[in-house]
């Protein structure tokens, strides 16, 4: 009952003219970001954060805008997967397996409608899950002191990439790079300048928004410059959709799939370090095990498109649970959303639910609302977005670049910050060429200060005794999860990776 009351308050926050408009804009932009190959939810949110900050939006409104973009991208990713066999973003990869074969059979419109419905179903299940699970997790989080929080941050890094991450050394290296960036600037506890090379610009530290926009937006420009002319523009003929409405019997057929996949996806999303890609992967593989009796999967089975889409949308909502209730993000996009809250001086975690209930419940209410908008945008109006897929990179990328510059310049008005952003763009390009993940770098730069502060607080309490970090029961449990989460992928990661590769090459 309490939850319902909170939710009603949330609807009061969400249903202002400004917030409804923001949700509409967010859903629309998000679907575009999702649909365009090369840009995903993290890029979309990254580009819009500095702008929502410069516009002076309050925390609840910014969160509504950005979370709508996040959900929208999860819907939009399927469009290019189904129509041109190129995933619009990473979680939509599994949707290509049965989605593109459906297109080849002339059933593209049906595939889009079915995935639209499953996306909606997955996202609604996840939003309800978020509503009930997050407050419970908050109760546990209230038991956490600095030592437990420090362990939790270590866990977030150790489990990054989930079970499918192949090279742990690279993930660790990337995390440390991000943490190293976060230590630049005046030390918050003793007031001494640190690693600032005597340069005044570095005294305030490097704003993580600069790292985020550099790595997620500017590096994209370099990738496009490198790949121009080589990207295939075939398949564009498929962008014509004929029949949109599937038979009722087909919709009934995918209902059990949607239910299974949504729950699997949601739990995959809540788990540390998993995120939406794992959600769609698990949903698809399990659905294939259950339903592939006549060997129809991979050849355009309706359940094969419904499963990954319900899975990734549910996982996207699930990933918001640890981010909001513990302040520990599990994926790139939730890390970026966390950065937004921190820029507004709001620290997620138990205090967020206590001090800023309007942000949490306004967000949840807005997510329900956004899903209905997205359902309309993505089924009857899906043709608009297929037109946008025709926008060539030569026009798209300059727009991304200019908006990144406008956003970062709007925060500080300093050319030096823009220079740093370009630097991180180049660094991001280099790391991507070396197959080093960017998400840990981003997370390091966002979480570094909190992590260090908690470590130092813990050791101040214990008067310098490091064993204190491993003393409480809660802390020991977290450390055990950390070790398992770090070691397990080394053992089973290769197997899962080869399974994904097998699925990819089959296609």
């Amino acid at each position: 009952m309490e939850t319902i009351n909170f939710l009603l308050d949330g609807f009061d926050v969400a249903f202002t003219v400004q917030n409804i408009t923001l949700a509409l804009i967010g859903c629309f932009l998000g679907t575009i970001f999702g649909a365009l190959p090369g840009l995903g939810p993290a890029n979309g949110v990254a580009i819009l954060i500095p702008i929502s900050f410069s516009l002076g939006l309050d925390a609840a409104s910014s969160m509504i805008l950005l979370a709508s973009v996040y959900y929208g991208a999860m819907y939009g990713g399927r469009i290019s997967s189904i129509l041109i066999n190129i995933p619009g973003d990473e979680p939509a990869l599994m949707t290509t397996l049965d989605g593109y074969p459906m297109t080849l059979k002339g059933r593209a419109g049906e595939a889009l409608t079915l995935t639209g419905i499953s996306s909606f179903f997955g996202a609604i299940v996840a939003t309800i899950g978020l509503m009930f699970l997050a407050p419970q997790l908050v109760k546990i989080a209230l038991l956490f002191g600095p030592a437990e929080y420090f362990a939790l941050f270590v866990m977030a890094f150790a489990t990054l990439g989930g079970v499918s991450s192949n090279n742990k050394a690279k993930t660790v290296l990337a995390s440390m790079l991000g943490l190293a960036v976060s230590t630049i600037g005046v030390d918050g506890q003793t007031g001494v300048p640190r690693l600032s090379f005597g340069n005044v610009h570095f005294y305030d530290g490097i704003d993580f928004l600069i790292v985020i926009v550099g790595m997620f937006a500017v590096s994209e420009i370099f990738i496009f410059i490198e790949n121009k002319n080589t990207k295939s523009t075939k398949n564009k003929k498929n962008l014509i959709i004929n029949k949109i409405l599937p038979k009722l019997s087909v919709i009934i057929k995918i209902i059990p799939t949607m239910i299974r996949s949504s729950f699997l996806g949601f739990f995959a999303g809540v788990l540390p370090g998993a995120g939406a890609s794992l959600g769609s992967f698990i949903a698809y593989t399990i659905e294939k095990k259950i339903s592939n009796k006549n060997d129809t999967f991979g050849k355009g089975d309706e359940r094969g498109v419904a499963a990954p889409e319900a899975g990734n949308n549910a996982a996207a909502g699930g990933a918001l649970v640890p981010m909001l209730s513990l302040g520990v993000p599990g994926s790139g996009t939730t890390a970026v959303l966390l950065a937004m809250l921190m820029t507004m001086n709001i620290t997620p975690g138990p205090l967020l639910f206590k001090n800023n209930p309007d942000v949490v419940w306004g967000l949840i209410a807005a997510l329900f609302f956004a899903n209905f908008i997205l359902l309309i945008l993505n089924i009857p109006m899906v043709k608009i977005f297929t037109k946008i897929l025709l926008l060539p990179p030569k026009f798209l990328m300059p727009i991304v670049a200019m908006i990144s510059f406008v956003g970062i310049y709007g925060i500080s008005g300093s050319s030096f910050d823009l220079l740093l952003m370009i630097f991180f763009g180049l660094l991001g390009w280099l790391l991507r060429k070396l197959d080093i993940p960017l998400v840990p770098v981003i997370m390091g730069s966002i979480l570094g200060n909190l992590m260090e502060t908690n470590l130092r607080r813990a050791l101040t309490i214990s008067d310098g005794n490091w064993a204190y970090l491993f003393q409480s029961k809660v802390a020991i449990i977290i450390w055990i999860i950390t070790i398992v989460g770090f070691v397990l992928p080394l053992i089973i990661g290769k197997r899962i990776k080869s399974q994904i590769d097998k699925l990819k090459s089959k296609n």
Partner: protein
Amino acid sequence: MNERIFGVFSFIIACGYIYVASLTQLSFISDPVGPKTFPYIVGSIFAISSLFLIFKPEFDPKWPSLYKFLEIIFVTIILIVYAYSLPVVGFVISTLIATFILSWRLGAKTTEAFIFSVVVSFGIYFLFRTILGLSLAKGIWGF
């Protein structure tokens, strides 16, 4: 450059990072940990993970051709010049020129790129400055 060379680079950077962190001046107020310990931990793990790349490389990156590489450098220079010209000549003119060059380098024809850059720079100016009231770079002429 393969993984191994990158590993060497990042090992040197990690060591340099630890060295610079060790130069931090301590103040009279301090906690039991001090400002140096966390960077020391980060730097050490950084260095160790670099060693893994040096001794156990697994991935062979594909590098762009020299021509593409020069193009990336060219675009970087354009972006840097853009960053410094913003406060001088203002948003509209510098964005017009930067967008023109970027879309031209990405394969647009000259006239196409020109029309596009006019639309983008005035479009963003109108949307962000006039409608949303965001502060854009003003420059000496005020736009």
